[in-house]
């Protein structure tokens, strides 16, 4: 009997404690800076080095590059860049290897839609996703000889 009464006491005490739930859809959830959300992609910075494609464990990035239209510049510029969020696991590996921080994480996480097709995001969409960008991204920057697509931020 005593254990039961103690238990009743605990639950009664908890009844008046402050509530811990979030009023989520009404109030947006603040995520810490390091949160791994939907990527932001800056086409100007990309040097089409293909490292993100190679490191992605689920093969959800697909990109194509073309020759730099400016004849004075060497290298390539990005033509299309897609991330398939049906299978992206937001593992952070692509942003980790990207030497120019062309693809970075943001704090946005609201991806649910009514159709799977909408989860296939192209570079325009990813470029427009420019809010709450994470401040640290390439933690282990890999030196690249000649970054031509843009300046690292």
């Amino acid at each position, binding site marked *: 009997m005593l*254990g039961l009464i*103690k238990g009743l006491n605990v639950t009664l005490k908890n009844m008046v404690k402050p509530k811990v739930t979030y009023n989520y859809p009404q109030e947006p959830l603040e995520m810490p800076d390091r949160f791994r959300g939907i990527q932001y992609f800056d086409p100007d910075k990309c040097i089409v080095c293909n490292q993100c494609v190679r490191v992605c*464990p689920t093969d959800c990035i697909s990109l194509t590059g073309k020759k730099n239209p400016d004849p004075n510049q060497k290298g390539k510029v990005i033509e299309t860049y897609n991330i398939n969020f049906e299978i992206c696991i937001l593992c952070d590996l692509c942003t980790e290897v990207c030497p120019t921080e062309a693809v970075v994480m943001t704090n946005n996480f609201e991806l649910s839609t009514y159709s799977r097709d909408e989860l296939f995001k192209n570079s325009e969409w990813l470029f427009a996703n420019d809010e709450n960008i994470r401040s640290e991204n390439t933690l282990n920057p890999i030196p690249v000889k000649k970054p031509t697509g843009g300046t690292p931020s």
Partner: protein
Amino acid sequence: MIRTEEMLLNVGPQHPSTHGVLRLLVKVDGERIVETEPVIGYLHRGTEKLAEDLTYTQIIPYTDRMDYLSAMTNNYAVVHATEKLMGLEIPERAEFLRVIVMELNRVASHLVWMGTYLLDIGAMSPFLYAFRDREQILDLFNELCGARLTYNYMRVGGVKWDAPKDWIGKVDHFVSYMQKQMKEYHQLVTGNEIFIQRTKGIGVYDQETAINFALSGANLRVTGLNWDLRKDAPYSIYEQFTFDVPVGEVGDLYQKYLCRMKEIDESLKIVAQAVANFPSEGKIMGKVPRVLRVPEGEVYVGIESPRGELGCHIVSKGKDKPWRIKFRRPSFYNLQILPTLLKDENLSNLVAILGGIDIVLGEVDG
């Protein structure tokens, strides 16, 4: 003429108490269980096979999804095996961070177990209290590595992120908060007569059976065997910390509960020590080549995950991908004892015994 018949009851795969998608084919005679056959594989994703086609760094996020309640220990198993094979030196600060997150993860995992177990037995509130407290651990992890469940935090050679500002202080604060909360759990659950009635003397097995079934973790220690890989085959920097390994005596569900609760206490102790001795500076990544090419060879490491011995066996042929990787997934081994335990039990003990084993279906199915 009165005639009784055995009835075949399909528990699962969609059932509230199978903790995922486990299916149990239960033959019952009235409410007495005659035979049980677990049917597994509904969550099989072929992690081991997939890993043969992935580089060592890419495997780490896959391990997050095996035992999703303690992804940190899974991360550690695979990076530890790789490091051992490559003979890497890990900076001290990284090891401290690893121990802190692994032990916090153990606390979180045991909290989920405690909550869901009580929910199986019919008490609702402990579940929400446990999740309330676990939430704080998840917030800490979120701040540290940017995810709440699939951490992908460890890297071969170290960890991905250093602790953010004030993080260590927050961990310290959490430890004292959690130690206070533990008292509340003991008041709410440990002394509860109904809970004791439902767990004391139920699902008993002896040490020999436990060893024969290759049980590990709390499932083994509850029979009185003091076997904890953190002590008996120390890895990382566990030798630096003082902690006890809680063991039971009779091997019933109540002692399993007590064991796991005490393990939370011990984990908190380890975290407190790690926080106190946390090196003020240092690198978090060792010297690692850009492309991880693991020398040819074979390695097996076993670490103490919240559920038992989590082993990782890597066979390398000198490529950047493993030739074969095998995880010894403790939930899978622990589940094997279920049909033996359930024989001739009452149907209402089914959920109690199944819950007591503490399986995570993602890990059982791999």
